[in-house]
């Protein structure tokens, strides 16, 4: 692998100068990719709206968002299939917004793989290398490297329709990687695979990215996939990047109600700030009475707020028995009746109808095989949560 990475190329890949230039750029702390107020409209619909983003070299970045949020449009602008209406795309400090796709040091793996059906596996992989005008021996060596890297031995002469879904995915990846792009774009790379294969392939993609030290940008609507693979995730909604953060930050400190609801399950309780003291806020809510939460990191615009609590941070105890731990002042303690139970193996999800009539979701890890503490439907329970586990957000 090392030999392959360091073998210098004439065209298509990187020249010595380009590599040195990018090394100095990286040393100077200039991000590999900078998006500067990027705008793309289709007619009157703004798909991407003044988007700003920096991506460092060697990063595994995921663009996450619901369908129609503009993430694919953004990816297509990076590949060169769409021209931005305004703004700049800086790759190694150079604006490539007007460069046609075939002249960009960027490659893309398509959602449906877009393998050429009339070419064999090795011709598919060699396609981009031939266009780059590499010498025949170099092409053969690189194809062999890719075949070994993606475990495609014994399939070189097959046509794409003689391959399984997982094999096609690997050929598509090999074809895009063969040109050694500065940036690899992956459009929903795992969407067409079944669940089991998807998990293996996620690990495989992470291994490849670390091994090659390449920069990956992956577009996905599957948050679990994004969290599993990416170093950082950019959450998009309606053409805007609403939050860019590591998976943990995204889940534990969402910066808006929308992000909290989009990433993972969450209980949202609306209320009004009643008092603030010593790093805590007390919020009066119609659904859950008085809720005490750790003071929010960001400034709130009004005192009309909501409290977000992840289901696994809600703890349940049978009514009457004293809950273990908790706050001495008995804050954030609600009573209700279990109305729904979903057993999911590793965890059990409960729906609790609070006395106020609101529904609260709680998720309990099944740490023992015979769970004697499991609750039944119609059982009265106490639900409680720590103030530090509450995130206070603008409504």
């Amino acid at each position, binding site marked *: 692998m090392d030999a392959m990475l360091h073998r210098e190329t004439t065209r298509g890949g990187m020249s010595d100068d380009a590599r040195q230039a990018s090394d100095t750029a990286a040393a100077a702390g200039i991000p590999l990719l900078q998006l500067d107020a990027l705008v793309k409209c289709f007619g009157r619909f703004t798909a991407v709206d003044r988007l700003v983003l920096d991506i460092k070299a060697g990063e595994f970045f995921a663009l996450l968002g619901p369908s129609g949020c503009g993430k694919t449009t953004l990816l297509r602008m990076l590949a060169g299939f769409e021209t931005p209406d305004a703004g700049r795309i800086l790759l190694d400090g150079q604006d490539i917004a007007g460069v046609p796709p075939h002249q960009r040091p960027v490659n893309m793996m*398509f959602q449906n793989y877009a393998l050429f059906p009339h070419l064999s596996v090795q011709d598919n992989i060699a396609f981009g290398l031939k266009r780059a005008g590499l010498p025949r021996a170099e092409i053969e060596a690189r194809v062999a490297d890719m075949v070994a890297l993606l475990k495609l031995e014994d399939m070189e002469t097959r046509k794409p329709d003689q391959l399984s879904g997982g094999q096609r995915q690997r050929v598509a990846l090999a074809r895009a990687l063969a040109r050694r792009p500065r940036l690899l774009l992956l459009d929903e790379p795992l969407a067409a695979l079944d669940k089991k294969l998807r998990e293996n392939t996620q690990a495989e993609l992470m291994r490849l990215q670390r091994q090659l030290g390449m920069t990956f940008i992956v577009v996905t609507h599957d948050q679990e996939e994004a969290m599993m693979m990416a170093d950082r995730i950019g959450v998009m909604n309606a053409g805007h990047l609403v939050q860019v953060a590591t998976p943990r930050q995204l889940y534990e400190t969402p910066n808006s109600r929308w992000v909290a609801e989009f990433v993972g399950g969450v209980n949202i309780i609306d209320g009004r700030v009643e008092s603030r003291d010593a790093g805590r806020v007390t919020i009066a809510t119609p659904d859950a009475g008085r809720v005490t939460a750790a003071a929010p990191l960001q400034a709130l615009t009004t005192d009309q707020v909501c409290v977000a609590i992840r289901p696994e941070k809600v703890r349940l105890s049978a009514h009457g028995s004293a809950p273990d731990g908790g706050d001495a002042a008995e804050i954030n303690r609600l009573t209700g009746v279990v109305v729904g139970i979903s057993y999911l193996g590793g965890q059990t999800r409960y729906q609790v109808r609070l006395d106020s009539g609101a529904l609260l979701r709680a998720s309990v890890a099944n740490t023992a095989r015979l769970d004697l503490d499991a609750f039944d439907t119609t059982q009265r329970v106490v639900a409680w949560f720590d103030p530090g586990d509450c995130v206070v957000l603008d409504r």
Partner: protein
Amino acid sequence: MKQLSRFNITALALGLAFLYVPIVVLVIYSFNASRLVTVWGGWSLRWYVELFNDAAMLSAAAMSLRVAAVSATAATILGTLAAVALTRGESFRGRTLFSGMLYAPLVMPEVITGLSLLLLFVAVNAERGFWTVTIAHTTLTMCFVAVVVQSRLGSLDRSLEEAAMDLGCDPLRAFLKVTLPLILPSVMAGWMLAFTLSMDDLVIASFTTGPGSTTLPIRIYSEVRLGVKPEINAICTLIIGSITLVIIAASLVSKLSSRQGESAAPL
């Protein structure tokens, strides 16, 4: 498969008989030894021998083949380009109008096409002959090619071309390296369709042809007006035979391409 009922078998037999009995009669009578078309005089290849000694008929056949080959090739190139422009081009102003205009000759009465072309050739003072018939047949068959190619292009995944460009092809090379090989079966089917249409055409050819460039259908038609000779049966049998071969070849080509994982060329 479901068993055919007695009624269905009868209906099928009647339908096939309606279509093919005249043709079968024609083929059988081409081997007739008698000079009279309607009287059976025993088996013979006499009229085939006579046909191959009929210089006028042979030169008409050669003319038809040349016109068909040249016009089918021109129509295939133009029709393919039109199909590419209409399916792949950015949506330009008047695109709907363009595709409508492309399809119009399909339903245009041939008499009108022939007459308007004749008026055009007279107006520009073109000498009527091989080239005027070829141009006329190109205009007639181009839209058929465009329709066949367009339906294939429409079902072709756009991202294949994008992948080619992503991997370093400019748009022209992406077309030549990826799109063209994938639509080739349809392009070939379009060529064969254009060839047959041109071979078959009587109306437009008779409007646009000149002295010394008689095509086979015109020749046959003028002979028949003087009375049907068994020789006509012989040449018709040869035409039927060659068309059958072309159709078998076309279906083999599309079957071959469908075995490559591509959907067969719709025809």
